[in-house]
């Protein structure tokens, strides 16, 4: 048989697959047929966690829980607590009113902004540092052995005890606050990135070895992309922690531009319950937004090929 004939056969096959000609082929390649009907949409995407229903099914449950919490809050504040102690738990509408109180709200929003700058600055540095740290450890077992214990110490060290020291060393201002945020947010970035880099399949690695690819190419074209889902999961955890870190730093360092932590500590000292609750809720909501943003961002980047939950 001539080569030409074989080439033709090849093309026929391709066309048969696409045009679904011939019942036999169709039966053989029924997966392909499904794909052809829905080439880029739901094909082969696992059913889990695809919120395709949208609408009420998606936001209904969390809203119901919110209603429940507010109801419970009213109940505890007005029925459970003795009247003499009810100032400890002001009713939700009074807390909510704080956000529109012209004497308090502007300060609070400014403080939130300051905290946001510290948290996002710390987060950014933690992300870069964490990835560099993990990549360095990934280069050789001995580097990993020498550096990993210190990453773990970052996680286990009593940060609260360290915070005053940081204040003495770096001043009680912006820099010290950022450093606290970095310290708290760093570990998840290091451990997640390292886990991601090392999760590469041995056979995929060998594919690159066979082409005599350099370490750098393997990192760039294989390990780093493979690690992206883990890196994004790490970012999401670190983002929440960076916000906590910024507030903790603020709580201790009263100098410089005050953040929401400084406000919280002030309201606490004065037993000013309404703004205290308002500030705490605002700070948590900000954490939620940052967490949610990185979830969304991760989904944007790797969601096409990875089920980023």
């Amino acid at each position: 048989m001539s080569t030409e004939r074989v080439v033709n056969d090849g093309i026929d096959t391709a066309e048969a697959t696409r045009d679904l000609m011939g019942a036999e082929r169709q039966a053989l390649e029924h997966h392909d047929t499904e794909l052809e009907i829905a080439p880029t949409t739901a094909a082969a995407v696992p059913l889990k966690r695809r919120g395709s229903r949208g609408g009420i099914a998606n936001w209904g449950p969390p809203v119901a829980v919110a209603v429940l919490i507010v109801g419970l809050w009213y109940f505890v504040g007005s029925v459970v607590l003795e009247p003499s102690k009810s100032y400890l738990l002001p009713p939700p509408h009074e807390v909510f009113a704080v956000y529109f109180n012209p004497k308090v709200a502007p300060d609070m929003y400014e403080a939130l902004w300051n905290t946001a700058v510290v948290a996002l600055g710390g987060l950014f540095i933690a992300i870069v540092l964490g990835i560099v740290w993990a990549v360095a450890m990934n280069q050789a077992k001995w580097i990993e052995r020498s550096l990993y214990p210190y990453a773990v110490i970052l996680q286990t060290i009593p940060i609260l005890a360290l915070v005053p020291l940081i204040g003495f060393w770096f001043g009680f201002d912006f820099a010290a606050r950022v450093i606290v945020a970095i310290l708290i947010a760093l570990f998840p970035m290091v451990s997640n990135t390292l886990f991601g880099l090392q999760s590469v399949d041995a056979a995929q690695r060998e594919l690159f070895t066979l082409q005599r690819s350099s370490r750098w190419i393997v990192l760039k074209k294989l390990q780093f992309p493979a690690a992206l889902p883990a890196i994004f999961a790490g970012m999401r955890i670190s983002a929440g922690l960076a916000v906590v870190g910024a507030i903790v730093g603020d709580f201790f360092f009263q100098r410089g531009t005050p953040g929401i932590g400084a406000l919280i500590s002030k309201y606490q000292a004065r037993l000013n319950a309404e703004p205290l609750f308002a500030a705490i809720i605002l700070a948590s909501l900000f954490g939620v937004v940052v967490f949610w943003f990185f979830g969304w961002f991760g989904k944007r980047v790797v969601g096409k090929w990875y089920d980023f939950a």
Partner: protein
Amino acid sequence: MAMTDSELATTSTLLDFQNVQLTYPNGTIALSGVDLTVKRGEFVTVVGPSGCGKSTLLRIASGLESSSEGISTVNTKRVGYVFQDATLLPWRNVRANVELLAELQWETQAVRREKAQKAIDLVGLTGFEKHLPRQLSGGMRMRTSLARSLTLDPELFLFDEPFGALDEITREYLNDELLKLFVEQQFAGLFITHSVSEAVYLSTKVMVMSGRPGRIVDTFDVPFPMPRDPDIRYTGEFAALVGEVSHALREGHGA
């Protein structure tokens, strides 16, 4: 690699194993005294029980592993290797996956594109270039993997049970595709499989390995002409040869 390019071009023995032995660092003897040659125009299949060292054989042939004893010679630089799993990069679509090896060889974008498209057409995946691996069936993933190796234009093609995880029908279909490629591209093949009938259908020569440590215990020449007629599977001669190979396999296993 002491050979000059002109020597490389004219040698007809592409792969030559003489008394190859491999002991893994933990003391496992995977291969002992394996003699095997693959010549231009040959499609050699190795069958053997699980764990007898078949993958090890390919790992030595590809250079991923080197033999502890004996001599293994590969007389070409163009070696294709198809792994048991498709090993596609899930973030790359079919085209980008097929382009990978050329990319790692620093080919220009235009050359990569052209090679990839040719290979994609050859394996019958035209129209699926933009699909991600997760959007493909198992058979299509395997074809993508095959296309990726084809871009190297290999003279020696190593296959490690590439169709082992597929259903019978898809497997037979891909066997035919592979034979077509073999006739057309004229590479030499070294194919590992568990399936005796797949071995006989695909190859010009079937080698039977014993249980660990693996040795070649028997060799069968397959007389059926290339390209193969799919219906040959249902002839008495085919069945007889399958029977002989299976018999040798059982004896080797027992030994």
